[in-house]
C-alpha cells in the first residue's frame, strides 16, 4: 500500500471467548435409536428407500434423493478402515502424551463412513483396509460412548 500512515499504530490485545450455552434440539428418533442399539451391542443403520444406500450413523434425509428415510437395518459389528490420521496434538493444540489414531470406518453393509478412535495398534502399523471391531463398555447406557474404541479384529 506504500503510503505513510497518518495514525501512529499503538495496539494491545485483549482475550475473549464465547460465553453462550446452547440447548440443541435434534431428532432423537434417529440418533437415539442408534444409541439405544449400542446398549444391546447392535449397530443400526438406515436405508434410503430410493437409492438403497445404508447410512451409519443413521441419517433421515437422503441428500442425493431428497426423500425421508424410515427403514432400519442391523449390521454386523465388523468394520473396515477407510481413512485415518494420527493426531499428535489435541484439537485445542496441546501436545498429546500418546498419539491419537482417528479413523473413518465402514461397517460391513454400510455405504457411509463412521468416525472411530482406534487403539491396541501402533500408529506405524495402521493400514487402510484392516478389519476392526468395537470394544464395548461393560455398563452401557444407550449412548455414543457405549463403544469405547475400535481394535483390530
Amino acid at each position, binding site marked *: 500500500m*506504500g503510503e505513510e500512515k497518518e*495514525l501512529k499504530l499503538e*495496539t494491545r490485545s485483549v482475550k475473549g471467548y464465547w460465553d453462550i450455552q446452547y440447548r*440443541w434440539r435434534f431428532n432423537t428418533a434417529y440418533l437415539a435409536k442408534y444409541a439405544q442399539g449400542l446398549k444391546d451391542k447392535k449397530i443400526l443403520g438406515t436405508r434410503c428407500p430410493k437409492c438403497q444406500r445404508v447410512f451409519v450413523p443413521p441419517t433421515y434425509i437422503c441428500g442425493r434423493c431428497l426423500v425421508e428415510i424410515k427403514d432400519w437395518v442391523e449390521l454386523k459389528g465388523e468394520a473396515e478402515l477407510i*481413512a*485415518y*490420521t494420527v493426531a499428535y496434538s489435541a484439537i*485445542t493444540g496441546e501436545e498429546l502424551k500418546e498419539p491419537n489414531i482417528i479413523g473413518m470406518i465402514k461397517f460391513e453393509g454400510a455405504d457411509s463412513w463412521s*468416525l472411530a478412535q482406534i487403539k491396541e495398534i501402533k500408529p506405524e502399523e495402521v493400514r*487402510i483396509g484392516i478389519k476392526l471391531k468395537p470394544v464395548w463398555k461393560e455398563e452401557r447406557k444407550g449412548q455414543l460412548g457405549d463403544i469405547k474404541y475400535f481394535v483390530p479384529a
Partner: protein
Amino acid sequence: MLRRVGIVAWEQSKSELEKEEPREDMIYYLVKALLEKNEIKREEIDTVIQCSNDYYDGRTISNVFTVVPSGAYLKQETKVEQDGAWAVFYAMMRIASGHFDTALVVGYSKGSEFDPWLAHSYCLDPTYDRQFKFLNDCSCSALQARAYMEAYNLTPQDLALVSVKNLTNGAKNPLSARGFSQLTVEQVLESPLYSDPLRELMCYPFTDGACAIVLASEEKAKKLTDKPVWILGVSCSQEEAYLGARDLTQLSSLKKSAEKAYKMAGINSPSEIGVFEVSEFYAHQELMITEALGLAEPGKGAELLKKGDTQLNGKHPVNPSGGALSANPLCATGMLRIMEAGKQLRGEAGEHQVDHPQLALAHGQYGICAQSNIVLILGR
C-alpha cells in the same frame, strides 16, 4: 447473464503471519488505497458486500463493525459468510440484475487472533461428530488426504511436491505470507508432523490479510478502467456436511462447478485456460483440485505436477502466486485468487507472471475438506 460484469480494480493488504494492524485499520487503509490508486470516489460505489465470519472475528454479525472502514456507510451493504469468491459472485449478480452499476467487495480475517483449525471444529455437527472432540480442520483434512492417497497409491512425497512448487512460487510474490526461494521435498517431509500425513509445510499458514475488489457493469467498467477483466463464467455447488457421507477421494462439488462454469464461458476444455489460481488449503487438495477441474484424470494430479505442467512456466500453471499454502487469510483467499487471475490476464503479476494467458480460472472453497467450491472464468 443479463449484462456483462467486469472487474475494474483490486487491492490486497500484504498477507502476514501476524499483522500489528487491527482489522478495522487493515480494512480502512486497504479500501482507501484501492479507491485512491484507481481514482474511484466512494460516491461511485453503489453497493458493498463484505466477507467475514463471526467465528473468525469473535463477534456476531461482525460486518456491522466494519461498515465504516470498508466505506459502506449509508450504502446497501450486506455480508457473505463463506469465502470472498462468493461475495464477488453476489456482487456480480447484484450488478447483472440491473439495480446496481458498481460494487465493492471486501474480504478479510486475522488468523493470528484465533485458532482457525479449532474454529472449523465448530462446523461439525454438535450432536454427533463434535462430541468426539478429536476433529479439527487439520485432522479432518488429514483423513481426506489419507483416503485420497490410498485410493490412488500416492505418497507423502507427492504431497510435498505441491508444497515445494507453491512455496517457491510464494517467494516470488512479495505480498504472500510465506515462501522459500529454495525448498526441497526432504525439507517439507522434515517439517513437524501435525496430523499424519499432514506436516507443517503441507498445511496453510494462519494468516492475517484482506482483499478488496471493485466490480462494475460493462458500460461503467469501461469508464472506470481501460483494462477491465470480464467474468465469463461462474458456478458453485456443495456436498453434504457429514464427512462420512461424502466420497473423500474426490471433490465432486468442484467438478460440477467447473463443468458449469466452462459451459457458461463457452470453453470446451480446461486446456484453453492459461492460468489457474486455486484455493488449496492443504497440499493434497491441489492435486484433487486439478483433477476436478479436468486437467488430469482422477488420481493423476501428481503425475501432472511431476511432468511440470502445473509449474509457473508449465502448460497449465497452477498457483503461480503461491496459492493458499503461501497465504490463507480466510474469507479473502478466494478474492486473492480472483485478483491474481486478473493480474495475470493484465500482465501485471511481476515475478510470477505466466506467459500471456487469454483466460484465467479462479477457485474458492469453504467448509470442512472443501465441502463447497466456486469456479470463476475470467478473460480480457
